[in-house]
């Protein structure tokens, strides 16, 4: 089947589902959402799989670009979106208030989720910088409402910060897009295909300014330090399924656009300069995240700072640009998505049962609820890079890639920052799963009544059970990946 057609179907499925959920009777909402999610995820996996199966022949047109990187991202966004939709009923059942009055709450939530998902799937597929910008801006409009969906004060604050900071950032990026458009043959926004960027003809200094504007703007959306202020707030206050989409799907999708800009403009402004900006953002993100990861933080806030760290690792890998580093990036994107989704999904039942878990650090969950403790431990252990986590291998690959690319100082700095982040996350892992519990949350037994069962925990358990073999397989695949055709295609990009 034509891959472009598959890509178009992948974009249409969630958009159509959003329309159907909005128009058809309310009683069908959850069923429609589930069916739409399964179809969308299946299409995303097939399209992504087709691109990864034949990485040497990317399909690159003026509007749709389907290469290995897009294929990888499509598969990730498809899976994360599916999980987010499937666990949403548990979140919606437990929610006590919302921006939208009760009779319409479920319907509006799913319409927004599918609209967000559709624009997210479009970002890696965009064959044109201007179209990619439009789709990223569309993700802001849909996801900001989801961040503030609970209607609580903290959620409104997080949603507002997210909306204003990312919109301003994208405004700055649009200035970069306009500057670029004036200098490519054709001279309009439609001419800004990825393959046209290296033909920029208005001079390297103007191209550099455009590149800096673009990356500064995209950094605000990708959650890179120092313009990451919205990220911890939005991730911690959004409904857990939305947090999973924001962290595991949105951030790497925006990062792919930054990567394509770097690859397109490097021939004009110089390889070292173009990569240096990404390495700078990567290091800044790692260094800023490390001290926060050492603090006692509420679970979702901890995962948010971990996103900052991991986006830093991915930016470094892309900046280093060697086969080793890019193999690390590929593994990191997938491993981070699985572990982060599990982390947000596993904590959903606990948040519904104990709202204070949204603001206070988790302590000793494994002592009171062993199954939940195992899931949280699996998520955090993987994110920390505790062997045999695939993220351990991917971080090694990225750092090694830094040495082979001639960025030894950056690789050393990254290794030190990763070690600090590792220590912080391992401390959080021990504290949240096996820490000393006092007061009402103390373990059952010794005269205490058994704790009530958590609805939705079984779904999280199924996800954890599915994640274990996937993560182990990914760790093994990471060793084979550097010499593969997929990595060769990542190095080549859409050229």
């Amino acid at each position, binding site marked *: 089947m034509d891959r472009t057609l598959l890509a178009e179907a992948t974009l249409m499925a969630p958009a159509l589902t959003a329309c159907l959920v909005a128009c058809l009777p309310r009683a069908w909402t959850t069923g429609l959402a589930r069916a739409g999610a399964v179809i969308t995820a299946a299409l995303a996996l097939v399209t992504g799989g087709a691109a990864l199966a034949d990485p040497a022949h990317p399909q690159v047109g003026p509007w749709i670009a389907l290469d290995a990187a897009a294929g990888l991202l499509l598969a990730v966004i498809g899976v994360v979106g599916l999980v987010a939709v499937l666990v949403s009923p548990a979140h919606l059942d437990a929610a006590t208030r919302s921006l939208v009055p009760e009779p319409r709450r479920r319907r509006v939530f799913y319409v927004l989720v599918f609209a967000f998902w559709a624009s997210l799937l479009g970002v890696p597929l965009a064959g044109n910088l201007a179209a990619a910008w439009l789709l990223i801006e569309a993700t*802001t409009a849909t996801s900001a409402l989801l961040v503030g969906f609970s209607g609580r004060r903290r959620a409104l604050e997080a949603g507002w910060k997210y909306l204003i900071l990312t919109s301003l950032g994208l405004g700055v990026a649009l200035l970069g897009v306009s500057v670029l458009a004036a200098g490519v043959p054709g001279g*309009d926004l439609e001419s800004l295909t990825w393959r046209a960027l290296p033909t920029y003809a208005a001079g390297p200094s103007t191209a550099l300014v455009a590149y800096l504007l673009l990356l500064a703007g995209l950094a605000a959306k990708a959650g890179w330090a120092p313009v990451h202020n919205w990220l911890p707030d939005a991730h911690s206050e959004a409904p857990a399924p939305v947090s999973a989409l924001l962290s595991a799907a949105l951030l790497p999708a925006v990062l792919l656009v930054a990567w394509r800009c770097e690859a397109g403009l490097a021939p004009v402004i110089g390889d070292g300069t173009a990569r240096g900006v990404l390495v700078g953002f990567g290091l800044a993100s790692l260094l800023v995240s490390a001290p926060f990861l050492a603090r006692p933080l509420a679970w979702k806030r901890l995962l948010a700072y971990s996103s900052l760290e991991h986006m830093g690792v991915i930016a470094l890998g892309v900046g280093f640009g060697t086969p080793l580093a890019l193999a690390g990036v590929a593994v990191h994107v997938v491993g981070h998505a699985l572990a982060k989704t599990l982390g947000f999904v596993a904590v959903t039942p606990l948040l519904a049962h104990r709202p204070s878990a949204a603001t206070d650090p988790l302590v000793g969950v494994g002592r009171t609820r062993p199954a939940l403790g195992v899931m949280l431990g699996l998520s955090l252990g993987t994110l920390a890079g505790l062997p045999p986590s695939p993220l351990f291998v991917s971080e090694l690959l990225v750092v090694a890639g830094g040495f082979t690319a001639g960025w030894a100082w950056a690789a050393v700095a990254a290794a030190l920052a990763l070690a600090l982040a590792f220590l912080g996350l391992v401390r959080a892992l021990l504290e949240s799963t096996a820490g000393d519990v006092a007061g009402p949350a103390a373990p059952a037994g010794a005269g205490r009544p058994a704790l009530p069962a958590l609805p939705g925990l079984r779904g999280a358990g199924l996800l954890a059970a599915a994640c274990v073999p996937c993560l182990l397989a990914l760790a093994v695949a990471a060793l084979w990946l550097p010499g593969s055709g997929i990595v060769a295609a990542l190095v080549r990009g859409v050229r």
Partner: protein
Amino acid sequence: MNTLSAWLLVGLGLPVVTLRGRRMALGAVTVQALVVVALAVHHATGPQEVVAAAALGVRALALAAVFLVLAARTRDPRPVEAGAGPARRGALAVGLALLLVWLVPSAGLASRTVEGVVLSCVAFGLLVAATTRSTVFQVLGIVLVENGLALAALDLPGTSWLIELGVAFDLTLIALVAGVFHERIFAEFGAGDTSALATLRD
């Protein structure tokens, strides 16, 4: 674009930085957007460009209508104070605009005057969003940035009406979402004042 239009656009942007009243600032941003629409119509050479200009016009009027309704529904007990006084904000805005014009090399738009106006609008918008605490003003800052960028898109050598329509649609959507947030923030906190939004810190 002639010098008069350039100064008119800059002159309509700068008051948004210094004004305290929401309606006056909204009026200045809307008139500025309509001047950009007039320039778009003047530039138009085919039906697609006329459609893109119409989209910009609809965006300008729709945003004005939405924010007028919002302003009427959410009357602040007193104007929300900004972080700095109007003179300081104005000086900062002019300084930032001059700095941007000095730093950014010629981008290849039709003239350096247009580039100066675009960069000034971006500087004013960023300053408004960064230094004011009013939720309405922060959104007006974004609209100000986008007015400048719409002007840049008009002055590109080619045309891309589809992208321009998309940008106009996206920005209208963002402003509508911001309107929803503004109303809820007003309902929860009793004012559209972002200084109340300071509980999420580490």
